């Protein structure tokens, strides 16, 4: 039996979950056990189907992508778009990541959200998100991918503003949605260009005909790829559209783990990897992609150094790691980018869920004593290791993984990206700069992660005397998924073990059929021998140095609680305020737009032109016209007769002639 053709089941299962949970949210919001079973169950089932398909593909790797056509969606003259799914080596990896990590996060949510009155609504949104995410990665053409692309944006908005009764949360949701829309504009324009150039929007056709339709390095392919990348900067939170992601932490923590760390934000990386042949044909765009990636990696990492909210640190860390992925796909190491995407989804989901456990414990402790301290501020934590040992050890694994310490997952993927950037430097020296930025970002990553761990778990406890008694590890339904993610973070590197340590670069070889078309336009020769040893050694040294500096500087000082901490000054303040980028955008974009809307569009166009000229103008004209015609209506029969007679004679004259 050919399982590949039931791939629609992977999407249909979460969709059914959404419908059931949505119905329950409307009519039976108290039925929490039913919601849990349906919400997490459909994801596990979807993962099982995906794994079965994967095993089948593994046994018999398809030479060409398998297209599963469901129905004709947009039959418009020459534009024929089918609602079809594309199963190939790349999409199945993404499906496994989405459903696998998604399942774990759904299980975690069962414990984390148990007390929330919007439990059913939460799972309905979460299921819907998975549906759209799977459509995004499985879509066989740009428009189908765009359904998912827009859908995940919608679910992201709904879940960021999940606790919408607080204005801050609702605003964060709107910010995310609007920023994403700006990027989506780029995606649309790129689609229009592609349609003009190719007359089709299917991935397979575009990939196959790219070489004959477009000139390598030409203006069209550069424009297409740059507009696509604009879409990526919105969805994947890169400079200049990254500011929504840290604000997106207003949503529930499992949402941050699933949407804003593991899956949705990696959609941009997936898009670049999917259209690898186009990016390979446009060296300028690739340079931009890698440059923006490196810059974002460095920029976000510096902001992460001085954040106090545990989730904000992780948010900037995510932005930074996404920058790494773009550095990878920008240098042409598409498989490495996807590899880092996968390992990042493991350790970052673990970090977010671990921070969720911490926040959960802190929140309960403060709730028990009716304190109003900030449960997410790391200055109120400290010494949690003895109260939450399981969470501590698991988060330590993730920290080592993200810092790039061998043999944890992040080491292999990050090292590959840096090595690729270094190798590309031979063609274009600018990449050496990107490599240097990546190395510095790696140092900062290790530093802020060590700071986070030290402030949260080590040193003396600063939570408070009474609260301390209430701190404890989360129940097994929350810790269980953490353990699985911990194992994956530890051994995830085995997915793509480099030849240096006796591996076979399994993921890279697996993805080869998908990345092959790019090969003919841009071939990347990875460093080998002594250079490779040197690069690996440098990366490890940097990671260790960063961790050491981070632990030392954080533990060496007394940390005041958030309540009586002195305000930051100087550079620390600038970093804490995120370089004032939000304020800058506010002054440059938001306020002018608001001014334009209020003064020009509202007072000028709406009140002046629409209300004044059009609506009231029409009324005035008809009143004047009616007023003058009214004079004819004298009420004198004689006048009517005269008019009648004149009319009759006039008509007769016309008829007789």
């Amino acid at each position, binding site marked *: 039996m050919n399982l590949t053709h039931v791939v629609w089941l992977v999407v249909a299962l979460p969709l059914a979950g959404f419908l059931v949970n949505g119905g329950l949210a409307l009519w039976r919001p108290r039925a929490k056990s039913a919601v849990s079973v349906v919400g997490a169950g459909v994801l596990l089932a979807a993962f099982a189907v995906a794994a079965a398909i994967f095993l089948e593909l593994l046994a018999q790797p398809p030479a060409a992508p398998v297209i599963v056509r469901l129905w004709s969606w947009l039959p418009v003259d020459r534009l024929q778009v089918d609602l079809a799914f594309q199963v190939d080596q790349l999409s199945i990896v993404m499906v496994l990541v989405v459903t696998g990590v998604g399942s774990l996060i759904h299980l975690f949510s069962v414990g984390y959200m148990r007390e929330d009155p919007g439990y059913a609504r939460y799972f309905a949104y979460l299921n819907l998100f998975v549906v759209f995410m799977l459509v995004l990665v499985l879509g066989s053409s740009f428009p189908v991918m765009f359904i998912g692309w827009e859908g995940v944006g919608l679910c992201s908005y709904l879940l960021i503003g999940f606790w919408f009764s607080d204005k801050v949360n609702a605003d964060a949701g709107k910010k995310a949605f609007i920023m994403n829309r700006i990027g989506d504009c780029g995606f649309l324009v790129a689609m229009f260009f592609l349609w003009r150039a190719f007359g089709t929007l299917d991935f397979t056709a575009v990939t196959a005909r790219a070489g004959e339709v477009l000139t390598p390095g030409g203006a069209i392919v550069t424009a297409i790829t740059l507009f696509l990348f604009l879409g990526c900067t919105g969805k994947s939170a890169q400079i200049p559209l990254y500011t929504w992601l840290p604000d997106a932490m207003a949503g529930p923590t499992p949402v941050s783990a699933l949407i804003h760390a593991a899956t949705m934000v990696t959609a941009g990386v997936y898009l670049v990897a999917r259209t690898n042949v186009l990016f390979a044909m446009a060296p300028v765009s690739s340079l931009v992609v890698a440059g923006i990636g490196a810059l974002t990696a460095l920029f976000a990492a510096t902001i992460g150094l001085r954040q106090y909210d545990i989730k904000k640190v992780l948010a900037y860390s995510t932005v930074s790691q996404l920058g790494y992925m773009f550095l990878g796909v920008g240098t042409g190491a598409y498989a490495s980018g996807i590899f880092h995407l996968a390992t990042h989804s493991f350790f970052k989901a673990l970090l977010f869920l671990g921070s969720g456990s911490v926040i959960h414990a802190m929140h309960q402790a403060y709730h028990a004593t009716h304190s109003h301290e900030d449960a997410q501020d790391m200055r109120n934590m400290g010494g949690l290791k003895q109260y939450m040992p399981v969470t501590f050890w698991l988060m330590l694994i993730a920290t080592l993984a993200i810092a790039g310490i061998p043999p944890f997952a992040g080491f292999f993927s990050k090292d590959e990206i840096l090595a690729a950037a270094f190798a590309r430097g031979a063609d274009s020296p600018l990449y050496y700069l990107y490599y240097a930025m990546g190395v510095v970002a790696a140092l900062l990553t290790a530093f802020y992660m060590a700071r986070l761990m030290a402030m949260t778990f080590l040193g003396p406890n600063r939570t408070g005397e009474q609260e301390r008694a209430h701190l404890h590890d989360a129940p097994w339904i929350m810790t269980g998924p953490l353990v699985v993610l911990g194992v994956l973070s530890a051994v995830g590197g085995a997915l793509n073990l480099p030849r240096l340590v006796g591996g076979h670069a399994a993921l890279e070889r697996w993805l080869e059929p998908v990345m092959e078309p790019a090969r003919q336009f841009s071939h990347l020769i990875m460093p080998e021998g002594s250079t490779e040893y040197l690069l690996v050694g440098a990366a490890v040294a940097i990671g260790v140095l960063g961790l050491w500096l981070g632990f030392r500087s954080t533990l060496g000082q007394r940390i005041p609680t958030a309540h009586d901490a002195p305000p930051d000054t100087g550079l620390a303040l600038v970093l804490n305020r995120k370089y004032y980028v939000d304020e800058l955008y506010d002054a440059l974009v938001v306020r002018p737009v608001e001014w334009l809307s209020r003064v020009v569009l509202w007072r000028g166009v709406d009140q002046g032109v629409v209300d004044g000229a059009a609506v009231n103008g029409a009324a005035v004209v008809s009143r004047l016209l009616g007023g003058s015609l009214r*004079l*004819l*209506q004298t*009420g*004198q029969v*004689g006048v009517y007769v*005269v008019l009648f*007679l004149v009319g009759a004679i006039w008509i007769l004259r016309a008829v007789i002639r």
Partner: protein
Amino acid sequence: MPDTTFLGPALGLSAILFSLGAAGVLLRRNAIVLFMCIEIMLNAVNLAFVALAQLHGQSGYILVLFVMTVAAAEAAVGLAIILAIYRHKQSVDLQNINLLQG
């Protein structure tokens, strides 16, 4: 060949009568007189129908019967209205009746 001897004078008389009636309708203000003028106009048309029936067949005679029927019905309704107006206003002068002025 129909006899057309009196056709010219008959149509001429009809035209004179119609003009008289129309002038009356335009110039007189008494509702009863106005009403009579309308009757004159109708009968002028009847005369024309009868005269032309010789040329165009029997339908002219039949139309005359129709016109007379309608005129009778109209007279009944019209006189009733005039009577009602008189009871209301103690006058049938059309200049005083301008309730529908815009």
